């Protein structure tokens, strides 16, 4: 997995509460059994003028310079709620997004971000608004810096906000770890739990149904 340590980039404000994963990537854009090729479908319902079409909607922020180069999204509460589709995160990543700053996230989406090299940063709504106000003055020049090592989001030299992440998620992103490999280091512990558990909860282990 790709590492995330520090990033200075253009940030695009897409402010609306409850942006669901159907909006981030509509189902109809998930055409193949693949994690690739999804960037094109990112925000398709907003980004293009017609459903299924590819003519760009000039009003949508990610179609406008300088936001076409954005790597950070500034958004509102409950971002990524709804469907569990990891395609939402794969689409964001392929398009170029590496960090999303919001007051809260849909829980499955937040986990999916961490497993795909995207940093979800939780900041209070007022702080997100501060960042949006500053970015909107001149988005190309007013880039944000997100530093996972220090746990800080900063804007030039006048805004600096701390954020936190669970230690496991932080380690995973900083080192680009493969979560399965990390867990498999505990294979013995898992096997020991299982053999103990099979005695305590024999009913919990599946039996083939009677024919």
């Amino acid at each position, binding site marked *: 997995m790709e590492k995330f340590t520090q990033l200075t980039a253009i940030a695009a404000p897409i402010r609306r*509460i409850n942006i669901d994963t159907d909006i981030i990537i509509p189902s109809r854009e998930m055409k*193949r059994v693949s994690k690739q090729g999804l960037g094109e479908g990112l925000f398709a319902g907003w980004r293009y003028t017609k459903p299924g079409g590819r003519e760009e909607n000039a009003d949508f922020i990610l179609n406008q310079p300088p936001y076409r180069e954005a790597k950070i999204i500034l958004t509102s509460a409950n971002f990524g709620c709804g469907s569990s589709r990891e395609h939402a*995160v794969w689409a964001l990543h392929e398009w170029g997004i590496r960090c999303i700053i919001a007051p809260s996230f849909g829980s499955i989406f937040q986990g999916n971000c961490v497993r795909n090299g995207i940093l979800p940063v939780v900041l209070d709504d007022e702080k997100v608004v501060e960042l949006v106000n500053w970015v909107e003055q001149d988005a190309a020049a007013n880039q944000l810096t997100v530093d996972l090592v220090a746990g800080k989001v900063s804007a030039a030299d006048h805004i600096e906000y701390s954020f936190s992440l669970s230690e496991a998620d932080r380690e995973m992103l900083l080192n680009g770890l493969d979560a399965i490999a990390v867990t498999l280091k505990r294979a013995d512990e898992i096997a020991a*739990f299982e053999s103990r558990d099979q005695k305590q909860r024999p009913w919990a*282990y599946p039996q083939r*149904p009677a024919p």
Partner: protein
Amino acid sequence: MGRSCIEKLWDAHEITDLGDGSSLLYIDRVFLHERTGSIALKSLEASGRRVRNPAQVFCTMDHIVDTFPGRTDQTLMPSGTDFITATREAARAAGITVFDLGDPRQGIVHVIAPEQGIAYPGLTLVCPDSHTCTQGALGALAWGIGSTEAEHAMATQTLVVRRPKTMRVVFDGTLSHGVTAKDMILHLIATHGADGGVGYAIEFAGPAVRNMPMEARFTLCNMAVEFGAWTGVIAPDEITYEYVRGRPYAPSAEHWESAETCWRSLVSDDDARFDAELRVNVADIVPTVSWGTSPQHAVGIDETVPDPATEKDVNRRQLMEKALEYMDLKPGVPLEGIPIGAAFIGSCTNSRLSDLRNAAAIVKGKRVAEGVRAIIVPGSGQVKAAAEAEGLDKTFVDAGFEWRESGCSMCFFAGGENFGLETRVVSSTNRNFENRQGPRTRTHIASPTTVAASALRGALTDVRKLV
């Protein structure tokens, strides 16, 4: 200090506390479907890893398959066939049980996992699908995950999970006639917001839940995710045990006693502490229908479309304005009487036998209004067969409904069948998001009986006038 049902389930599966607020949990069951499971299986294979214990993994075909009678691997969704065949091949290679097309047990994952007795109290169960919380109604810890986590669960039989805060939602009182579990959960979300449960695992409790049949409990837990919750749980009781007993994959007679002893201990202790508690008197709830594009945009059928001008919170106000524009509605218009173009009964929320029985009782001997497209999609092959044995299919067809094979169908738009541009649909599903049921389709979510009543009149209808 006492523990809650959620804490007991958590503790029983905790292999180790990772010390940063998360734990490594043992996962008893993994369920997959062809839309997201196919990628998880393929990607696992590509990484050279194996499914650790295939007997604990199951798979169904529900999301992309067509629901027309006589369906095959071919789908209206372009490239849908690829998902079906890729899933089938990968599942076979991995040695996991598949409820494939043509199998009488096939159906929507959250309907068939309980129906087959694969989900039952005391288990952890995950699926790369957000509505996995439905199955928490059995007193299991069941939650939706991403595809990468599904790979992790299959390869290791574990997941690293952040310990959630706990919330208890107590439903007091007795439901009025014509009001259902669907109305309860819509009411809860409308009152506290679509992010009201973010960060929480929720236990639904109280007399109104204890009196609820199993199928209604699934409906209640189904929309915990629409409340933003990590999952929802209902502590098991006699109703749960009766439901589980004798199902194909349920604990055998030999293990039943030890299972039931354990399940009885899962009930929250009297002195259990919750991080938050909400109380609702269900007698205050009326049939509830959504008017906007978030499940929090719902009001009683006897109310009017709300006015964003009265909303103080700027974020919520903006969302309401966008929603009204998308839904083509004006503030102040009574919900009842808004004309509809289609009616849909189906989905993991409301497609079980009792849902179909209740809807059939409303439409029996009547006709769907002129110009309304009305569709019934049973949640599983077994629900369909049971409904047909009672003649419900005939009731629906005589009334002008289409009677389908089971699957997710038009609960969501995958690129194939849909309701059409700007059609207004009243739907027993769980999501009224923009474009969820088709390009610019306008969805009103409601109970199956409200859907049935509205189909007859061709407009949103207060079902209490018909029952």
